[in-house]
């Protein structure tokens, strides 16, 4: 861990100003009979208990829309359900990157005096409340009605076409894609409550049936139920509360490059290059300094491309990097140590929050047998809508400030 350019971090930035003081997660996977609001509330209760604060101390709530919930203003419906009346709130929507934006906006609101203690919370019930068929249709129907949908372009297809082009340009193989799923399944086998824990092989992935080339069923993330919640407050207040192991937001940045897949500037280099560059600059650390990562993994190829764009390996080397064991324990950057969207759970926006939960738990040293030794700096990358939205978040322990 070397401070590569700490001095270059802007003085007025959010770096180190905001701490995560509580984290919580509902049961995940198949959770029948529980609404998105209950899943969110269960996670929120746990996050508050973890922080050791009462619900009346929450004055800000940021959330995301739940596909299985009728409420347009989910953050408002949540606050009523949870019995609080916040004075700062919003329901955000930039697909998979929403998770990161909740942290960024929550941190900025605290720093700017709009709120003192912000609850970041989301819950959804894609498996039990919506059914897999309806969840996929709903995602598909979020594509453009005139220029994409009439051609029967599944949500997987936007990501499939980027991965396919990556294979053509850099020689990335189906076996290397499969290795991402195999590695993450191994990670999930050590995560209590993970939805899929049975070990799989590269052959299992390749024989799991084609969904849309080059993706087989096991190259695709799960469809799940579940919620997650976090309590953010100022570094000063975290100290005053006597929080034992606050985790600090060191860098947060976003990049939005297009809406339609056909206007994506490059199919193989994404907005993650810019979002991570800005997040590293704010944090004053680089890719080489990171001890653990949560990398959005809607599909296996997504992880390979992101490991490149986040600077963990050169462009085009992602497949070899993964096959060489560099994304697991003992490698360069242990990633998705909970199993990720591919094996732990994917309940929509909360799925992306699970990466935050895992990386923060790693930095607090709470991951038991899957703990990454001496983890002090962690990165989470969230993305969505066929790489249209990208956001990188960097966290650190007290000693990284």
């Amino acid at each position, binding site marked *: 861990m070397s401070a590569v350019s700490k001095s270059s971090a802007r003085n007025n930035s959010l770096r180190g100003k905001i701490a995560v003081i509580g984290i919580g997660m509902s049961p995940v996977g198949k959770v029948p009979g529980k609404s998105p609001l209950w899943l969110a509330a269960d996670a929120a209760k746990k996050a508050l208990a973890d922080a050791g604060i009462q619900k009346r101390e929450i004055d800000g709530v940021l959330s995301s829309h739940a596909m299985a919930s009728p409420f347009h203003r989910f953050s408002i419906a949540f606050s009523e359900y949870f019995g609080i009346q916040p004075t700062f709130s919003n329901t955000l929507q930039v697909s998979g990157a929403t998770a990161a934006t909740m942290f960024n906006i929550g941190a900025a609101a605290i720093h700017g005096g709009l709120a003192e203690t912000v609850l970041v919370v989301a819950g959804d019930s894609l498996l039990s409340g919506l059914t897999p*068929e309806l969840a996929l249709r709903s995602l*598909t129907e979020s594509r453009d009605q005139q*220029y994409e949908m009439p*051609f029967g372009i599944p949500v997987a297809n936007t990501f499939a076409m980027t991965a396919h082009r990556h294979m053509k340009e850099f020689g990335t193989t189906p076996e290397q894609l499969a290795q991402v799923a195999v590695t993450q399944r191994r990670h999930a086998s050590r995560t209590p409550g993970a939805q899929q824990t049975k070990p799989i092989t590269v052959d299992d992935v390749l024989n799991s049936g*084609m969904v849309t*080339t080059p993706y087989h069923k096991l190259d695709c993330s799960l469809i799940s139920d579940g919620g997650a919640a976090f309590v953010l407050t100022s570094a000063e207040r975290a100290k005053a509360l006597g929080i034992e192991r606050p985790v600090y937001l060191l860098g947060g940045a976003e990049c939005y490059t297009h809406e339609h897949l*056909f206007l994506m500037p490059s199919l193989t280099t994404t907005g993650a290059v810019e979002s991570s560059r800005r997040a590293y600059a704010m944090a004053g650390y680089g890719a080489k300094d990171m001890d653990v990562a949560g990398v959005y993994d809607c599909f296996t190829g997504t992880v390979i491309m992101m490991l490149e764009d986040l600077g963990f390996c050169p462009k085009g080397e992602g497949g070899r990097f993964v096959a060489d064991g560099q994304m697991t324990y003992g490698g360069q950057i242990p990633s998705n140590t909970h199993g990720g969207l591919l094996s732990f759970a994917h309940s929509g926006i909360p799925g992306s929050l699970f990466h935050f939960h895992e990386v923060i738990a790693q930095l607090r040293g709470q991951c038991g047998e899957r703990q990454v030794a001496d983890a002090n700096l962690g990165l989470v990358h969230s993305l969505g809508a066929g790489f249209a939205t990208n956001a990188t978040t960097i966290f650190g322990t007290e000693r990284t400030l």
Partner: protein
Amino acid sequence: MKKPLPAPDADTAEFWRGLRNGQLLLQHCGDCGNVQYYQQGICRNCGGENLTHRPASGRGKVHSFSVVHRAPGPAFKGDVPYAVLLVELEEGPRMISTYIGGKPDDVTFDMDVTLVCEPINDEITLPRFRRA
């Protein structure tokens, strides 16, 4: 189960009219020379509104593709497997389409393709591509 069809709006009515007449219209900006797909009220490059529709040559290359084996909803179940294409038009812009006139497995990267206008009903004609 009916397939989703485009509902032309104020920005795009002329584009869909063009397809009905067998032409794929691209917008050319008279101020900066930008050529754009899809149809907008302003130029994405310079913001100008001096836009002219001109028919594309219909020639392009397959920049990427994905053969769909599991349909996105019941409307497309009868069509699988089919190849969704990201076509790079000769004029520069890229567009999403589907491959017709051959087996989806025949599609390759950078393959030359040609526009085929396929009428769906009285109002809508979809732009598809076949091997050149």
